[in-house]
């Protein structure tokens, strides 16, 4: 258990700290997905989740935070880029689905989208 959280302002931060921020975003996203009834809220949750993941990728790739040979290098950033692009694509599709759903159900309440329930 190597905890070096002593004083955040005078010590350098590490990947772990970024990951905690990522975790917070991730969790908020999950909670958002789980609690919002508005489809767009769910979408925002997804965005938050992806962002949380991105933070991790960036942090692991950052040479500022880790020693030589320990970083993910440019791959982190590249993967983050792909995530961003895919997120944009996903957002577009989700919005389209939402619109479609709205057109058929007259609402964006995903609790009404339970036609396939068991």
């Amino acid at each position, binding site marked *: 258990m190597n905890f070096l959280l002593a004083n955040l302002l005078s010590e350098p931060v590490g990947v772990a700290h970024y990951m905690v921020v990522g975790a*917070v*975003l991730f969790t908020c996203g999950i909670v958002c997905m789980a609690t919002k009834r508005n489809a767009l809220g769910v979408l925002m949750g997804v965005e938050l989740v992806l962002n949380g993941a991105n933070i991790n990728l960036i942090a692991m790739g950052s*040479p500022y935070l*880790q*020693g030589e040979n320990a970083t993910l290098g440019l791959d982190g*950033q*590249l993967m*983050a880029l792909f995530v961003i692009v*895919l997120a*944009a694509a996903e957002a577009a599709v989700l919005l389209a689905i939402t619109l479609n759903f709205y057109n058929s159900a007259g609402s964006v309440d995903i609790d009404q989208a339970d036609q396939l329930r068991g």
Partner: protein
Amino acid sequence: MHWPSFFFLLFGGFACLFAVAVVLASNIVRMAFYLVLSLAATSGLFFLAGADFVGAMQLMIYVGGTMVLLVFGVMLTSQSPFVSMRTSSGQMLTALVLGGTLLFVLSFTAFHVPAWQPTHRPAVDPNTPLLTATPIGMALEGYRVDQLDQPDPRIRQGMSGYLFPFIIISVHLLVVLVGAAYLARAKRRST
């Protein structure tokens, strides 16, 4: 005062704060607004971690593009501008508890991997700017200029390039856009 840490706290704090605000807000537009702020703060973190290009991408695509799409959706889908749909507090609590546990597990793990702990001797001094745009561009075209000193020739010669994924993503994006446009096309409701 260690400036990167200070800015990390600043941006990280904002990102977390607004992410929480997204969860707590009940109005969809406000949620969107907080989300933008959170994402903007995240891009600040990216800049801080030396990923200028990704940070700018983040601002551009998420903050600019995605958010506008979202708000667009809000305008089109809500019956009235101030609609909010309440979730039952029970489900909310379940989500919070599970989420809290998840957060705990994630943070706990983060602090238990030795390689992820703060170091006083990073690979690159945080005051030195990194130039990543070109290498990223090259990597997307299949050339890893950052891997030139790799001993493994296969990696050096571009096996670690991202040309193929890039193409796939591009095609995927195209398909998605077409598909989205198709899905979202205006239909008259049957009744």
